[in-house]
């Protein structure tokens, strides 16, 4: 009790002046007589990261995946590599460093907000360059997010094409929102809503586990739901793969139109032949092109206008905007009590007017950037419509280069392939 009494004035003084004299020493440092030496501070260096090694490993895995898909044409081997990638890039490296998230760092590097390291930029570029030459081999066997879904896809069913197309538009929205969030300094959406990283680390918030669990359960029946209907990096890979030099083909030689592979792809990436379709006449083609060209600016304008009207809602993802609206609400008496954020703000040096001005500037920034995102989405719709209506005639079963993840699931379905294997076995 005596202790408390002597302490009370000191505590009161500390409480009064504590905030002001924060950085100064209240008590003199002792001069020891007994020869006491300070213990060592325990400050271990980062473990588990060797960026150069990871980059080399990624390149090697991509090369191996390309060889297994295009040359060996072996589904078991591709699946084996998938498991290895899941073990290393997933569970051992615990999901970070990954090319999917790296696009945010690269965007920040381009905007000059944060310095991006060579390893991260390499992680971003390598899968894209490989996709430009060999198709989406990264998705097939290297990406840990793809791998965990590939493993759980035990009873995949094919979705109706229309559903596939409509849901396939979501990744573009996700991509636009991700870039919007990074460019306005609102944080990394891909990392925040990464559904599987919780499994890799064996620890995450309940929401993360719920999202991941739902996606994995869905993934039992609808193959790779994250890759097909969410992944923003997949959009970029799809663009590259669309123009790839070599790409996984269902048949090693000539398609014999046997239709055995028709239901082979659970990811809806096999284009069926259109023998009944007759090529458009020049007049029809010109009319169609005219309609599309007229439609494109309209769609872009609609997208931009939607962005202009929806930006206040999106701006709320920025922490400063959140804080400003909270403080304004507290001042107006709309909220009872304070949050930790508002308390920390009130204890700081920034004034309310400064905060409001900052939030206002961020909202203005959001305004034109959201409009830009909307315009981009309008353009994507226009291009999708164009590719749907102008699609040429196909005689054979072909992979949809943009959507195909080169997983090699369709290879065993092709009788031509089996025939070749049998011939090779007879020879030996």
């Amino acid at each position, binding site marked *: 009790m005596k202790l408390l009494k002597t302490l009370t004035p000191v505590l009161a003084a500390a409480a009064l002046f504590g905030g002001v004299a924060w*950085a100064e020493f209240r008590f003199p440092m002792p001069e020891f007589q007994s020869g006491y030496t300070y213990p060592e501070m325990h400050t271990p*260096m980062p473990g588990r990261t060797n960026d150069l090694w990871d980059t080399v490993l990624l390149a090697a895995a991509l090369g191996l995946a390309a060889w297994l898909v295009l040359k060996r044409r072996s589904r078991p081997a591709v699946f084996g590599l998938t498991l290895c990638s899941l073990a290393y890039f997933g569970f051992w490296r615990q999901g970070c460093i990954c090319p999917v998230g790296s696009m945010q760092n690269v965007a920040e590097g381009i905007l000059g907000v944060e310095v991006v*390291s060579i390893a991260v930029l390499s992680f971003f570029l390598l899968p894209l360059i490989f996709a430009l030459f060999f198709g989406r081999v990264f998705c097939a066997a290297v990406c840990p997010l793809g791998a965990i879904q590939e493993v759980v896809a035990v009873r995949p069913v094919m979705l109706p094409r229309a559903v596939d197309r409509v849901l396939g538009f979501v990744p573009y929205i996700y991509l636009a929102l991700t870039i919007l969030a990074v460019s306005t300094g609102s944080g990394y959406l891909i990392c925040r809503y990464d559904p599987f990283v919780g499994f890799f680390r064996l620890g995450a918030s309940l929401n993360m586990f719920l999202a991941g669990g739902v996606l994995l359960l869905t993934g039992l029946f609808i193959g790779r739901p994250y890759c097909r209907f969410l992944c923003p990096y997949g959009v970029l890979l799809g663009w590259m793969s669309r123009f790839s030099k070599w790409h996984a083909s269902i048949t090693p030689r000539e398609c014999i139109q046997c239709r055995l592979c028709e239901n082979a792809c659970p990811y809806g990436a096999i284009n069926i032949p259109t023998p009944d379709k007759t090529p458009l006449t020049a007049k029809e083609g010109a009319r169609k092109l005219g309609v599309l060209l007229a439609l494109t600016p309209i769609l872009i304008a609609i997208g931009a206008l939607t962005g202009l009207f929806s930006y206040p809602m999106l701006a709320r993802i920025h922490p400063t905007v959140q804080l400003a609206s909270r403080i304004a609400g507290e001042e107006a008496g709309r909220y009872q009590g304070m949050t930790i954020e508002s308390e920390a703000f009130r204890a700081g040096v920034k004034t309310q007017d400064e905060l409001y001005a900052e939030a206002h500037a961020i909202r203005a920034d959001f305004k034109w950037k959201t409009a830009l995102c909307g315009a981009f989405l309008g353009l994507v719709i226009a291009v999708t419509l164009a590719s749907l209506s102008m699609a040429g005639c196909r005689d054979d079963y072909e992979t949809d280069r943009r959507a195909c993840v080169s997983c090699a699931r369709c290879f065993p379905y092709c009788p031509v392939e089996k025939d070749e294997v049998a011939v090779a076995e007879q020879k030996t």
Partner: protein
Amino acid sequence: MSTDKAIRRRDFIRAAAALGVGGALWKAAAPASGATVWQIDPQKCVQCGRCATECVLNPSAVKCVHSYQICGYCDLCGGYLQPSAKARTTGAENELCPMSAISRTFIEDPFFQYIIDESLCVGCGKCVGCGKCVKGCALFGNSSLYLQVKQDLCVHCNECAIAKACPGDAYRRIPAEEAYLLKTRTEGGNAQE
């Protein structure tokens, strides 16, 4: 012949596009060689307690560290004892640390040394102080106890989950070679990184 030419032209365009776009990206992003890690700026920390709860790891990779050089070695330690402590003992009613991770040893009259057992620490920052109820080391002491991300435990998330939730905006990326923001004793008597 014409298809051959077309294919060669396509190859050329593809290679040129890969080189051009890749090179432009590389130039625009201007990568640096070093990796970065997340760390807490102790001057900005507001001791909200979220380091213990928001980390993707459980227990958190954030631990309390002790800069012995700026510690006052007080008998009556604001980071070790509850403000209402009736005795300077290890009783749960007296100790501030909920995990009893701080051990106190006598050095010489009147100085006591406080050592943190990292395996017990959960990074709650109660010893640092919570800003409103408990006056810890930051508010009643030399502020020699403070929180740092232990880099051997940290899994280096691209977006640190605690940084996102930090009300003091105290988290930032720093070069991996110097992975800590430690307080040291300086001439002017100010605690600095």
